[in-house]
């Protein structure tokens, strides 16, 4: 994904993309599964950090509703996702009407769907394809500081994936308890399901690393 698309997505999610561009982007999202997945992540992270749990709870009921929505009735899902923070829905959703809402629901649904939505044959612990760049989505919190979801490694800075290093990370994580800030076993578990390369190797001199 190039920078322009990322900026468009970010503006789209932040409800700052002009109507015409938003319409074009929605069409592109409908045709590009990878882009949809990336949009969903950026959107979901933003919602998470704003405390909008409902969209991410992935309860069985929600999954069922999403599946129903994809089959033709998106309205209940959108309503169920609405929280106090969501009282004023994004402008683009209002502007673009039902079709866009369905697309947005589909975007939301993609990574909430259980096994089967991942490409077959991808061994996530040993995958060696180029890692997907982590999104940088500006989020709103009650804190005085503006936080962003951490940008980690740029494609340019990526040297290779090194699955062997995953063993070190897992050994380290295993020594931490669940649910602490280190999230020990929770991290272990999520590392087994995250798409892309488990470990991203970057040059030691890469200044972006120091931003972590």
């Amino acid at each position, binding site marked *: 994904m190039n920078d322009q698309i990322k900026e468009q997505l970010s503006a789209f999610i932040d409800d700052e993309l002009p109507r015409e561009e938003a319409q074009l982007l929605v069409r592109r999202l409908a045709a590009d599964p990878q882009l949809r997945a990336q949009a969903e992540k950026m959107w979901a992270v933003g919602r998470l950090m704003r405390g909008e749990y409902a969209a991410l709870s992935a309860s069985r009921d929600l999954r069922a509703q999403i599946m129903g929505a994809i089959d033709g009735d998106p309205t209940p899902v959108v309503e169920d996702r609405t929280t106090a923070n969501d009282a004023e829905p994004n402008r683009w959703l209002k502007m673009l009407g039902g079709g866009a809402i369905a697309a947005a629901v589909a975007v939301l649904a993609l990574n909430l769907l259980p096994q089967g939505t991942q490409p077959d044959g991808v061994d996530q612990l040993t995958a060696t394809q180029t890692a997907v760049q982590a999104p940088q989505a500006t989020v709103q919190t009650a804190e005085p500081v503006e936080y962003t979801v*951490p940008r980690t490694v740029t494609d340019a800075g990526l040297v290779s994936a090194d699955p062997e290093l995953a063993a*070190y990370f897992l050994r380290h994580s295993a020594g931490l308890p669940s*649910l*602490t*800030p280190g999230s*020990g076993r929770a991290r272990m*578990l999520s590392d087994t399901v*995250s798409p892309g390369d488990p470990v991203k190797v970057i040059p030691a001199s890469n200044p972006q690393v120091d931003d972590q």
Partner: protein
Amino acid sequence: MNDVVRVPLTALLWLVSAAAVAQSSANELLASIAEALEQASYEGTLIRAADGEIVTMHVAHSAADGVVREKLVSMDGEGSEILRNGDELICLLPKRKVKLVDISLASSNAFASLPVVVDELGKFYDLEAQGTERIAGRVARKFFIRPRDAFRFGHRLWVDDETLLPLRMQLVNRRNIVEETRFVEVTIGVDLPASAFTSDIDSSEFRVIRAAPDSGDDPRSAQLQLANQRDSANVESWPPESSRGFRLHTTQSQRVTINGRSAQKLVFSDGIATVSVFITTQPAGEDDVGSKVSRMGAASSYQVRIGEQLLTVVGEVPVETLKMLAEHAAKQISARQQPVRGEPD
């Protein structure tokens, strides 16, 4: 946000007026949180976000009759499960039909085992009590453990007012949230049946992989004990203080198996952040680049070669901290001119 108060970490919890937090030190707060994590019974759905990825999980946890049981199920991806029963940890990866079994992983609790020293903590962190918020429908007291320098991350904690179970956690650097874990919904104090901790996956035909193969089926074999004794002797001669407040946690020196090689694992901590240092004997390969940095979720690693010793330092801390601890370990190895040698494959 309401009622933000900053105090030295050594002062503290008279600011936290709830009866559940009657302790008078940060140590006791952390210990109480650790106890709640280990001893409370709870069930719920939580979300972990890091590195641009989000994973939703269901967790069930109990500590009946002195045996901790836990079941963690990913609701995304292939539906992996991690089951803990006392000291045994099983990780089921259904898509790959793999069952990982390790009895050395489960009996860890970083909070409980950390070398928490209030005075030391106070040198490197401030504690801010930041009022209350509702998390997953429960009243939570919010704390910010703010680092005083750039060698460690900050921790935001939302702790259940009644039980002290953490309901939401954030690992933050100067600008960003590095990692967040939070309950979406949770029931605390629930009496969970045994069936809550059994797998829903038929793993009868899974390939079983057991950790610690260097010591056979029993990782507490004589071979491992000898290696541990030698490691402990080496570790005891290390200066306990490295720098920037990270201390060597001697009791956690242990032998682990990494990619089929035996490694010595040392744990450093500043009382909150934990860094693992793995030392293996590994001849340099053709593609050996000397040193490299990598990332996995919120954790980073720094790997550097010292002769035949390969040092891999991993932790949820800034990379500069990893480099600092790697240099510290390298100095100790070089000074002895008798490297800590790994076991043969």
